[in-house]
């Protein structure tokens, strides 16, 4: 057991998988000798060798494309896309190939690929180091989408993802790599080592895909969030003294509908929070599902607090970010409704 930052936990997950399974192979831009621009793969090449952990050409389509071929051979590739903003050139290989091959081949070619990629804003990264494109992936049949919110989950979910026999996109909320974030950008940041979170086992363990976590029980309203927004939402309800149940989805697809449904049926109210732009974001699917399944329990419309429908603006980042004020306003409104 150790106190790990999220980046250390992610590193440890890959280390464990590399050690346990000779087919696990890590590849991506700058991930080898250097250990990744966020240090997620630091030390792995030195420990596991250059043919298992290696740098690639700057070609996201190629990274996913060769991973598909490697998976067809029998490897279990873990490609990194340096920023989620750069995943689009690799989308075709992910959407049209990796996600479909089990179906296309009626089970003969399986694709145990885990694509890792840092996503989300809050780091003054401008338009192309801040995006949250997760909704697009949840629309793709055959792909799982996983987003952790703390070191323990990050490691356990990443090991599950790597061990899963289907392609998983694993988005890492880079804003909280080194410490959680309550949404108050003007306050000093706490590193993970200083906050109360479960210690991270140094060895192998898993957190199952498809299971949400209730991070705070409550009875007046259900808040659905994932990644960074779990912390912002939780801090907001606590600061406002709202008796909210905060659910960390952890896996977007397959979604833990049982936990969501039970909670909303209990509270009668639901607020969804994500950083991604609003229209056709994953909040839309959540809102659609909740009203489909909890219609007769709802006391107020399911409400979304999201990034605005604009590109990510560099200097106005904190006005764009769905922070405590915006979440708080939505909660007040839903509780009134």
């Amino acid at each position, binding site marked *: 057991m150790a106190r790990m930052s999220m980046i250390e936990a992610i590193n440890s997950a890959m280390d464990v998988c590399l050690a346990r399974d000779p087919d696990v192979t890590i590849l991506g831009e700058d991930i080898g000798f250097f250990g990744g621009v966020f240090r997620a793969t630091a030390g792995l090449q030195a420990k596991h060798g250059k043919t298992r952990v290696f740098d690639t050409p700057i070609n996201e389509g190629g990274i996913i494309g060769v991973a598909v*071929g490697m998976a067809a*051979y029998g490897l279990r590739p873990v490609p990194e896309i340096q920023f989620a903003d750069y995943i689009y050139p690799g989308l075709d290989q992910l959407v049209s190939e990796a996600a479909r091959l089990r179906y296309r081949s009626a089970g003969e070619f399986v694709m145990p690929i885990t694509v890792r990629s840092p996503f989300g804003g809050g780091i003054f990264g401008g338009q192309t180091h801040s995006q949250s494109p997760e909704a697009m992936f949840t629309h793709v049949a055959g792909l799982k989408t996983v987003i952790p919110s703390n070191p323990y989950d990050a490691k356990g979910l990443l090991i599950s993802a790597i061990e899963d026999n289907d392609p998983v996109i694993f988005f890492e909320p880079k804003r909280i790599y080194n410490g959680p974030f309550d949404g108050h950008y003007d306050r000093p940041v706490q590193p993970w080592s200083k906050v109360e979170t479960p210690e991270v086992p140094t060895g192998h363990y898993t957190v199952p895909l498809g299971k949400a976590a209730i991070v705070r029980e409550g009875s007046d309203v259900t808040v659905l969030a994932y990644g960074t927004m779990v912390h912002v939402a939780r801090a907001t309800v606590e600061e406002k003294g709202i008796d909210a149940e905060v659910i960390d989805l952890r896996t977007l697809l397959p*979604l833990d509908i049982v936990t969501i449904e039970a909670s909303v049926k209990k509270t009668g109210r639901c607020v969804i929070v994500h950083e991604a732009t609003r229209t056709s974001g994953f909040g839309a699917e959540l809102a659609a599902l909740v009203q489909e399944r909890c219609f007769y329990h709802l006391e107020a419309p399911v409400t979304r607090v999201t990034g605005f429908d604009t590109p990510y603006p560099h200097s106005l980042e904190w006005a764009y970010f769905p922070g405590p004020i915006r979440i708080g306003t939505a909660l007040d409104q839903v509780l009134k409704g």
Partner: protein
Amino acid sequence: MSESPRRNLPPLTLHVPEPQFRPGDEADFVSVEVLAAGVTPRPDSAADAGTMRELAYGLVRVLDDDAIAVGPWDPKLAPDVLRRMLRSMALTRAFDERMFRAQRQGKTSFYMKSTGEEAVAVAATFALDRDDMCFPSYRQQGILIARDWPVVDMMNQIYSNRADRLKGRQLPVMYSTKQGAFFSISGNLATQYPQAVGWAMASAAKGDTRIAATWCGEGSTAEGDFHSACMFATVYRAPVIMNVVNNQWAISSFAGFSGGEATTFAARAVGYGIAGLRVDGNDPLAVYAATAWAAERARTNKGPTLIEHFTYRAEGHSTSDDPSAYRSADEATKWPLGDPIARLKTHLIGLGEWDEARHAAQDVELAEMVKAAQKEAEKNGILGHGLHQPFDTMFEDVFEEMPWHLVEQRDQMRAERAAAGI
């Protein structure tokens, strides 16, 4: 910067390529430079790619105009092997004929012939080992046939019937068989290229001895995936053979729209420091020899080879296409490199190892065999006539385990169909 006023230059013009012939034109390929058989040199397969750039501008040919094998690339194959190769090509053609007709008869939705290009798949497969992994496009049915894959199984796929191993999920001709070392064909062009490279990288990383081979059309070389494949192949010296089937046409677009006016497709290899060969794709011996050379190179850790197969798409792009709308009707017959089956046949006859009668008999035999297979396959159903896979199969294999939302959707479908009495 130059502050001179805009110099008195002619206006710029946009060059838009135009093929030599259009419907109504009489095709005449005098402008296609055809190097003589035997003149293109054969370097050692271990030589450095940088020492053999000129090969990308040559043309590896073994069979000369009289179908006699000449020059350094002659693979000197035993007559028995040649006869098997001939048979596989002829079977491919017979199969194509039959399935094309089946589509026209409404028994399936779609078909694609490989007529005129049989050597590119068949002869290459003969030069590979049975377990070398193939990542083909939709026009290399010859690979499966050369590997003696049951044509009934192929037909079941084409009919999307209840015996289709792919459960009716794929468009006809999008075969897949792990056992046949034949990767699931994609509808998205060129995606198989980086996949083949990745497979080859994996094989290398594991210290295996199997190599990968992939095929795409000259039109598909324009896709970004082609570049991805070349990049990864050169960087990691992947044991892979990248075949570009330059059959002059990509649906209605001639090779000029994929860069064919400016240089050869084999020259792409030069750009990446990869070994590149340009081969007479209608010469089965040349295709065999080039593939064997590239395979040797790959197996000895000398890295990838890109092979341009210079050939001609003798028929329409697919059953959905009508080439008479965009190209001269007599291009196929005027094609200067002839027909691969005819050339190998003549060669074998020249060797005294074959004759017209045997050839005619084989054609009849193969046609009968295909017909019998078709009958067999049709017992399992044809497309759209009920004998498909059970409806529930639609929800299988999306994931290893069916998640709740697919279970719900399946149950909903069952309930709705039951309620509707269907």
